[in-house]
Each structure stands twice: as structure tokens, then as C-alpha cells.
């Protein structure tokens, strides 16, 4: 009962902070709200019995990716968008919001109404880091390998783009 209550509380926090992150005019505030939303998500993972995923969520997203976002925002010195008048007619600015909200509401209702698992409440099991490791490197070993390949391709690509012209010319002359 308490767990269900906390779950809905965290869910509400995640939704509200994400919405606030979208509508903030100041990018630094947007990042802060996103970090809060990530924290709420991590706690939800913890509640669902996955402490390792919760910890990784905080380390990777809040601790690394959001820090990088903040770094870029500060380096580029993006000034807050002050009440900029858009040239689009009034109805065009709010119709997408209403549509998305409608879709979200319908989907939530359908999920609550049709999903038989929803009635059981939060499952009471607990995945230790060991369980997580076994699942990741036995059952999903192929997926892990494919993703690691992709990451190394991306690293090589980033290296190529990052090469300055002079160094690239020198490397081509050498080869």
C-alpha cells in the first residue's frame, strides 16, 4: 500500500518536472528540472526492486549526461529566450500540446483499464547486482555485444570528425 502510494507520488513528480523542463525559457532551469525528473525515475526503479538500475540511472544520466548538457550551455552562453513573439497563428501554438495531452490521457486510461498486471500492485522482488549481471551477460549477451560494437564505431567516428585538417593531412601523407 505504502509502496503504491510512493510510486504514484514519484510518478507525479517525474511527470510534472519533465513538463516544467520542456516549458522553461532558461536552459539551465530546464536541465535542473530534468535532473529532478531523472531522480524520480531512479527512485521508481529502486522501488520496483532494481537498485543497480537506479544507481546507474543517477550516475549516467544525472551525473554525466546532464553535466555535459550544462557544460555546453555554459560554454555557448545561451541567453534565455525572452518572450519571443512567434509568427504562427494562436491556435497553432496550443493545438499540439492539447493533442499530445489527449493521446497521453487515452493511453494511460487504456493501460490502467486493460492491463491485468496493473491490479497486482508493485511486485515484491529484488534484483541484486549479481542477478542483473547474470541476466545481462547470459540472456542478453548478443545485444550487449552489438551495442558495444556500435559504441566503438561511434568512438572511431568521433575521432575522425575531431581530427584537425593539418593532422588529417599528415596522417594521409604517412599512410
Amino acid at each position: 500500500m505504502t509502496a503504491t502510494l510512493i510510486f504514484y507520488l514519484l510518478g507525479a513528480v517525474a511527470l510534472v518536472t519533465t513538463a516544467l523542463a520542456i516549458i522553461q525559457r532558461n536552459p539551465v532551469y530546464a536541465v535542473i528540472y530534468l535532473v529532478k525528473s531523472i531522480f524520480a525515475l531512479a527512485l521508481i526503479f529502486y522501488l520496483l526492486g532494481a537498485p543497480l538500475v537506479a544507481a546507474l540511472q543517477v550516475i549516467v544520466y544525472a551525473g554525466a549526461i546532464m553535466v555535459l548538457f550544462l557544460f555546453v550551455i555554459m560554454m555557448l552562453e545561451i541567453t534565455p529566450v525572452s518572450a519571443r513573439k512567434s509568427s504562427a497563428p494562436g491556435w497553432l501554438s496550443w493545438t499540439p500540446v492539447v493533442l499530445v495531452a489527449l493521446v497521453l490521457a487515452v493511453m494511460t486510461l487504456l493501460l490502467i483499464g486493460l492491463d491485468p498486471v496493473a491490479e497486482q500492485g508493485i511486485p515484491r522482488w529484488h534484483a541484486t547486482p549479481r542477478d542483473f549481471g547474470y541476466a545481462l551477460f547470459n540472456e542478453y549477451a548478443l545485444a550487449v555485444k552489438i551495442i558495444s560494437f556500435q559504441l566503438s564505431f561511434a568512438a572511431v567516428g568521433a575521432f575522425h570528425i575531431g581530427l584537425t585538417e593539418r593532422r588529417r593531412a599528415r596522417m594521409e601523407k604517412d599512410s
Partner: protein
Amino acid sequence: MADTLFTVVLILAKLALIFGVVLFMAAYLVLAERKILGRMQLRYGPNRVGPFGLMQPLADVIKLLTKEDFLPARADKWLFLVAPGITAVTALLVFAVVPFGPTIEVFGRTIPAAVVDLNVGVLYFLGVSSMAVYGVVLGGWASCSKYSLLGSVRGLSQMVSYELSLGLSLVPVIMMARSFSLHDIVMAQASVPFLLLNPVACFVFLICILAESNRIPFDLPEAENELVGGFHTEYSGMRFGLFFVGEYINLVVLGSLMTVFFLGGWHGPWLPPVVWFLIKVLMVCGLFIWIRACLPRLRYDQLMNLGWKVLLPVSLLNILVTGAVLLGLGL
């Protein structure tokens, strides 16, 4: 019901104990640092307040509390006020998982000598400590001053470069202890501390926590002689005090983590476990102060080069070698 109540009381008692001890240690580390630095530079250090200057921390607190809490005109008020708290709180939060002694028996229950013994303790430390940078960054940004902003950007890029090696230098420790729990990691060092088994990881970890604590030779976010005070240029009174104390709490916390990961935690002959733990923590803190007295500040590009071109490959190689050795020994 009585059981739950007992657990709650126990946790509160441990929290109060740790809070008190860590704050006390942080306050007196400031004094110890000033004294030791003074002696190393052929000065006396503070010796006016109380016998041998022992009341100096109290005088400092009174001074900071009674000073004006200044808010720059164009500062982002809310973030400016919150930022010092983030630094101090994240430093204190890490201590929740640090085990400072073996499990004890109270009223027939075994109790770990840490606030909680998480099975993802190492990751908890990495997660919370990666939050600490937000205090530095948001404080500097909210001040709306060029020096502060420069300090923040430096703090950010320093953190991005060193966080990775910090995490990777702990992987061999986890591999050798076969657990993420700090208690298990200390238990795995009952005979030989990991400092002797894997000195490379220990060295990388030491450099990374030096960078993490924003101290010389990695104090670029503050850099008094080029950025005035870096990210805390605009702060005054107790808010500056929170940044300051946060740094020293961080010192105690990182010292205890060094002890837990590499120096064998509370294990040691003759003396009681908690005393051994305290001695080791103070030795690491002493080393930090000594380093501050000896080394100059690194230049910015040197710092980045060291992080990305030396520490990262070394810690990655170290993981490979440790894994190979563990496999070879059939452990």
C-alpha cells in the same frame, strides 16, 4: 511494531553520531591544515584563540555567522541560495554507506556499523559524488559574475574528465572483492589490503579524489590568484562557510573511502577497529594537506591531458590485467 521502532531509533542514533563526528572532524581539519601548512612554511599558524589556537574553529563559525549574507544584484536568487547546500549535503550523504567498524551485536541483532549497508554501495558513492558538482556549477552560474562562471566551467570539465577514471579505478576493487557492498569490500581485505594487491588502482583513485575534492594541485575551479575565488567569489557569510565546510567534509569522506577501498578499512592489529579506521582516515587527510603544501597548481591543459591521456588508459589497462590475473589464478 517494537521492531520497526527499534530500527528507526537505531538509524537516527547512527545518523546523529556520524553527523556529529564528521562535522567535528571537518572543523578541526581546517585548524590542522592551517597549523601544518604554517609549520611547513616556517610560520606558527593560528595560535591566539584558546590554548594552542584550539578554539579557532569556534571563532571562525561565529565570524561567518555574524557576517552579512550578501546577494549580488543580478544573481539568480533561488539557485544562488540553494547551491552551497548541495555541496555540503552531497558530501554528508556519501557517509551513509561508509562502514567504520565490523558488525556489532545489540539486543541479539546484528547491526552493520554504517547507516545502511547497500548492496550497490560503490555505485551509491559514485552517484552521489557526481551530484556534488552541481553545487559548484549552479553556485557559480547563479552569481552572474565572470570569475564565478569561469570557475564553474572549469569545475564541470574537471569533473567530466576525472569522474570516469574514478569509477574505472574502482572496478578492480569490485572484481577482487566480488561485491558492490562496502562492508564486503572491507571483509575481503582482512589479510592483505588492496593497496598492496593493486597499487595502480590505488594511485589512480588517489589522483581522482584529489581532483574530486577541488584541492591543490587540482583547485582550478577556485584558483585564488587568477579567478579571485572561482565559483564562490560572490558568496559571503555562512553560505561561503557551507562551501568551505563542504570541502572539508568531502575531505573526511574521501579519506574514509580511500581507507575502505584500499587500506583495509577497520582491520589492524592490537587496537580496536574504530580506532584503526580513524587513524587511517586521518593519515589520508594528512597526506592531502602535505600534498597541498608541496605541489603547485596544474595548468589547465596539463590537467585535461593527465585525465584523458594518462589516467583513463591506465585504469582501463589495469582492469584488463586484474581480470586476466584473477582468471589465471582461478579465483
